[in-house]
């Protein structure tokens, strides 16, 4: 018998609302809004209130997928990253760096988003970097 609440930050958007994960016997069973956090002051939107639901979903992506002949196949990170890097290189050589663009994510941390723009600007050589929240 074990129940605890673990405070963390909602992953849905960039607001950074405090959510409290309710864990019962090692199983995530629900969320509550963080009452003491100045960002959301005890409130959540509907996404925050349901932000735990994807965790045990069958459809959740657990491994990288690579598309071969129009069909996705599960694979390891090595192959997935090699595929992406190889294709990006090829596109850059054939069509130039500005033919590549990236959309960063609100579900990532500041630091990860920083690295994404670094990758686009320094490694790829384009300013085509934007954010999913502006879609």
């Amino acid at each position, binding site marked *: *018998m*074990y129940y605890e609440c*673990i405070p963390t930050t909602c992953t849905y958007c960039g607001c950074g609302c405090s959510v409290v994960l309710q864990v019962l016997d090692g199983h995530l069973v629900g969320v509550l809004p*963080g009452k003491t956090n100045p960002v959301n002051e005890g409130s959540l*939107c509907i996404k*925050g*209130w349901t932000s735990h639901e994807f965790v045990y979903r069958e459809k959740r992506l657990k491994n990288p997928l690579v598309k071969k002949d129009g069909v996705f196949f599960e694979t390891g990170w090595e192959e997935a990253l090699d595929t992406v890097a190889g294709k990006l290189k090829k596109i850059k050589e054939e069509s130039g760096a500005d033919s590549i663009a990236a959309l960063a994510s609100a579900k990532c941390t500041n630091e990860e988003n920083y690295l994404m723009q670094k990758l686009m600007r320094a490694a790829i050589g384009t300013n085509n970097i934007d954010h999913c929240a502006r879609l």
Partner: protein
Amino acid sequence: MEALKNKVNELLESGGIAGFLGLRNFGSEPFPFLFTRDTAAEVEKITTGAVRYPLSKILIRIAAVYPDAIFGIMCRACDERAIIELFKNTKLRSDKVITIGISCTDDLVQACKCENPQPSNLVSGEAGKKEFDRSDVQKIASMTLEQRFDFWTEQLGKCIKCYGCRNICPVCFCDVCTLEDQPLVKRGEIPPELPSFHLTRAYHMAGRCVDCGLCEEACPVDIPLRTLYRRVRESVKELLDYLPGEERDKVPPIQVLGDGLFEIRD
């Protein structure tokens, strides 16, 4: 706080309870936690905090997994009122729950406009003074019908349908919620249909709402939901002589209406 710690330790050590649901300081902030004999060392970090989490609602979830266990629960007066209604609605069993009363700070009582901040079985702190502040309900009552309609249309129109009022409510416990009934409530549409969405919830609060105000606290757009439910609560008192959460032994009206025992007059 020492009295509370001692009481919890005593209950856990004697085997009187399998677990005690209260607030624990996690870092410097209070969050709900179930203290058990295995985690007795954590009792040092127990706190009454200045915040309110829906502990009674959390207990429903835990008790559903451990139906035979006896639990202690830290109770403000509002928690206790909710628990009384949950007993009556068979969501918790009165022989399986021991309430340990804690007091609220004067600031909290004032912020909550709490009419009865005095739990029974008070172990920690002194019972707060009652606040009889009906100014919110009176203000609306003094409006003309047209003003009132405009007021509520504006307020309810802010709704982003987060379902926070329902999710945090200690006496919202249905397995199937009519507010998610697809033919009645269109998915992906905000605000929801006015005023039926909010009035449906208000009707469902009749005979159940214990006036804790957690709904209003959780509302991201500051709809004065509590004012609405307070009026419903007053109607139930006027018409059916029932105040949810106040009387342990009184049968709730929903269980007797229809037998001809009550007659509702204008």
